[in-house]
């Protein structure tokens, strides 16, 4: 079928929904999503949303901006960080007005807690900046924005999968979409498309991310010739439940939890003497891996303990109840009396589709691609630089989702819904036919498992030239194997087998961009740690990586970082 809307938003997490709310009063906007909106991964966010409200102790947006820049190891674009830090305050009040049930202070204001890398007075001491609703902050914001979208009658197409961007002469004219229920391929003709498809933690074996996080929007933009920015920067969250990767939010440490090694020692005191367990995630993850490598994991094994026992039963029940229930359900651990075994888990992608501060997608010459916008984890503005601070994603989603919405409204004046190419969607039809008719070959799961292992072994917390070269070589082989990927189910309705196989193409493609970008960057910065180049090297590497698909293969280039208020300094905590 052919659908027509002024604007199509792909993704119904917080970024997509917030943008939709902005556009709905003035234009015909539709949201498509591969999962029902309240199933989006934004709902998994636990700990909080960052804004310098100063409800618990003095705070200022400048400190928030500084922390964001320093947390990002100075790769953050400072104009964007300034927008984030200043607008965060308005954005959180707005969420409260829409009905988000934030936890409260005794005075009835929004409650705030400490979080990794949030400091007062430019790094002096930890500060309570994370606004929270117990440990289900993302969940209740998602419910609230979805309800708001309902109230405004915004059209949502659930279980519709984006399969391709439709371009004409460099401008985006619509999207090709696969409907899960029927197997039909629909074309959406639009004036503007906003990608809000989230992250792609599924590139790794152990991740806090959901199964839907396969980077569809990011890969499809790349396949369409749009460069990807800073793909080497992958956040490993220090505290995933050992083995499963299920997240134990930083809020656990914000509320006083500490990490301990086999000797029972609070080892973060050595790595970050000032803010200890509340150091940024890249540093804490490296510290954990170092402890493990030096034989100080629990019982000499590959995990450490997160100790919440001193927080007290009541406070755990009030502030960290979901986390406590995860520990109980998955480990049989009572957080009030026993520590939680944890190890780093792939959590967040700092890199993605390059945009300006208004959500416009930028091409390799830094010029906006007409009709294409991106927001949320799939975008790289870049606020998070080389390492995102906790609570800065949720605020990124609502601040930049809204700004993208506003920009689209402004741009609609000169964007037209015409010149939709006749060949649109034919590639998708062919792709699906090929998969459905191939009868011999290998299952997607085997190839995906191998890819996840390669990426985990060579492109995680620590990286080396040798390991990355190996990864690249192995990915080449896996891409070759993918050419004969074979599915079991060939019918039209609810063919999740087919979609699994298609998403694997995306994951493999993105893995390659990550490894290539990591190989090229011969320094250590934020989450990208090269054991063979352990120092940050501002003279050569204070720049964003861009990787672009060309006929000659992937090409890497660089673009400058915007620095306004804060000159790069050594990063210690």
């Amino acid at each position, binding site marked *: 079928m052919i659908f027509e809307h002024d604007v199509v938003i792909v993704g119904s997490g917080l970024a997509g929904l917030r943008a939709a709310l902005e556009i709905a009063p003035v234009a015909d906007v539709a949201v498509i999503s591969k*999962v*029902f909106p*309240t*199933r*989006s*991964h934004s*709902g*998994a966010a636990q700990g909080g949303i960052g804004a310098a*409200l100063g409800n618990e102790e003095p705070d200022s947006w400048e400190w928030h901006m500084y922390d964001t820049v320093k947390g990002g190891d100075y790769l953050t674009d400072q104009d964007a960080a300034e927008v984030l830090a200043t607008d965060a305050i308005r954005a*959180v*009040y707005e969420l*409260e*007005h*829409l*009905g988000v*049930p*934030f*936890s*409260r202070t*005794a005075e*009835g*204001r*929004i409650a705030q807690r400490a979080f990794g890398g949030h400091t007062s007075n430019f790094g002096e001491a930890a500060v309570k900046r994370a606004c929270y*609703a*117990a440990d*289900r902050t993302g*969940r*209740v914001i998602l*419910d*609230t924005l979805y*309800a708001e979208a*309902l*109230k405004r009658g915004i059209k949502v197409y659930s279980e519709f999968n984006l399969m391709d961007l439709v371009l004409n002469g460099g401008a985006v004219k619509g999207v090709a979409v696969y409907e899960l229920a029927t197997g039909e391929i629909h074309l959406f003709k639009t004036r503007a498309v906003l990608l809000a498809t989230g992250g792609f933690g599924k590139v790794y074996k152990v991740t806090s991310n*959901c*199964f*839907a996080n396969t980077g569809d929007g990011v890969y499809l933009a790349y396949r369409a010739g749009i460069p990807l920015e800073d793909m080497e920067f992958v956040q490993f969250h220090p505290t995933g439940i050992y*083995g*499963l990767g*299920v*997240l134990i939010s930083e809020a656990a440490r914000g509320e006083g939890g500490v990490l301990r090694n086999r000797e029972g020692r609070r080892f973060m005191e050595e790595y970050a003497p000032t803010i200890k367990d509340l150091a940024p995630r890249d540093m804490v993850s490296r510290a954990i891996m170092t402890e493990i490598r030096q034989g100080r994991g629990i019982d000499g094994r590959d995990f450490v303990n997160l100790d919440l026992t001193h927080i007290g039963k009541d406070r755990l029940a009030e502030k960290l109840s*979901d986390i406590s*229930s*995860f520990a109980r*359900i*998955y*480990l049989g651990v009572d957080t009030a009396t026993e520590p939680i075994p944890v190890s780093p888990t792939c959590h967040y992608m700092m890199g993605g589709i390059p945009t300006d501060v208004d959500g416009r997608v930028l091409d390799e010459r830094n010029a906006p691609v007409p009709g294409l916008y991106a927001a949320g984890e799939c975008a790289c503005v870049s606020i998070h630089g080389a390492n995102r601070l906790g609570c800065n994603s949720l605020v990124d989603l609502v601040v930049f989702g809204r700004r993208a919405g506003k920009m689209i409204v402004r741009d609609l004046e000169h964007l037209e819904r015409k010149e939709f190419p006749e060949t649109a969607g034919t590639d998708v039809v062919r792709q699906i036919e090929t998969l459905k008719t191939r009868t011999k070959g290998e*299952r*997607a*799961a085997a190839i995906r498992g191998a890819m996840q292992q390669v990426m985990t072994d060579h492109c995680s917390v620590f990286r080396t030239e040798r390991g990355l070269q190996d990864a690249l070589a192995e990915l080449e082989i896996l891409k070759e194997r993918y050419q004969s990927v074979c*599915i*079991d*189910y060939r*019918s*039209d*309705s*609810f*063919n*999740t*087998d087919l979609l*699994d196989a298609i998403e694997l193409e995306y994951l493999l493609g993105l893995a390659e961009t990550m490894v290539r970008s990591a190989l090229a960057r011969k320094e250590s910065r934020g989450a990208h740690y090269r054991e063979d180049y352990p120092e940050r090297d501002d003279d050569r590497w204070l720049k964003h990586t861009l990787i672009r698909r060309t006929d000659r293969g992937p090409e890497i280039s660089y673009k400058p970082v915007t620095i306004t208020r804060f000159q790069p300094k050594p990063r210690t905590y």
Partner: protein
Amino acid sequence: MIDMNFRIFRFDPEKDKEPYFRHYTVLAEPWERLLDCLNRIKWEQDGTLAYRMSCAHGVCGSDAMKINGRCALACQKLVKDYQGTEVVLEPLPGPGFPVLKDLMVDMAAFFKTIELVRPFLNASGTPEKERLQSPEERKKVDEVIRCILCACCVGACPVSNENEKFVGPAALVQAFRRIFDSRDNEKDQRMKQLDYPDGAWGCVNHFECTRVCPKEIPVTKSINLIKREIQKSKLS
């Protein structure tokens, strides 16, 4: 690793006249989730099997199904607790959840009832900063905001299973969230809306919903509080 035996409800509307059960055996670690087993079955043995899932840790609400007769999330149940037994997996039961394929059901009617209770805050004015709400006021909704709209409660509720018109426990939990939110000013209207036989009064205290709720929300208690508020408002 242990051998796990599954009997799984299968139905493909394109091919099958009748639903049937299919047996699978899969190796799993005791600490893994039943969802991990399902994934292994689908990815390694039989790609034709269909079910929904996403977060894999009980926060998105996708994988509600009947597990050995009880509505639950496959991602919250561990292999070790089913060792040595055959695990029977069926779709969410009841007239409100027509089977689409295998373990996937049509959730449209469920979400319609949620929409019915207008699950959004209605408050007047926009102060410069946040609206004030005391911790005690906020505490009233502390449990219900855990709801992930998984529909386990509705699948388990004997009334919902008999009477499709009953608004059902999930929608009542959503209504509770606004009725008891001190910031909302449509309380009276909301209660009036639920004051009918298939509304709040449809619930006859079976407690099944409370027993199955994967987020441990005191569903029945919440419904009873709504009933009490309705009564109170009628008296005054």
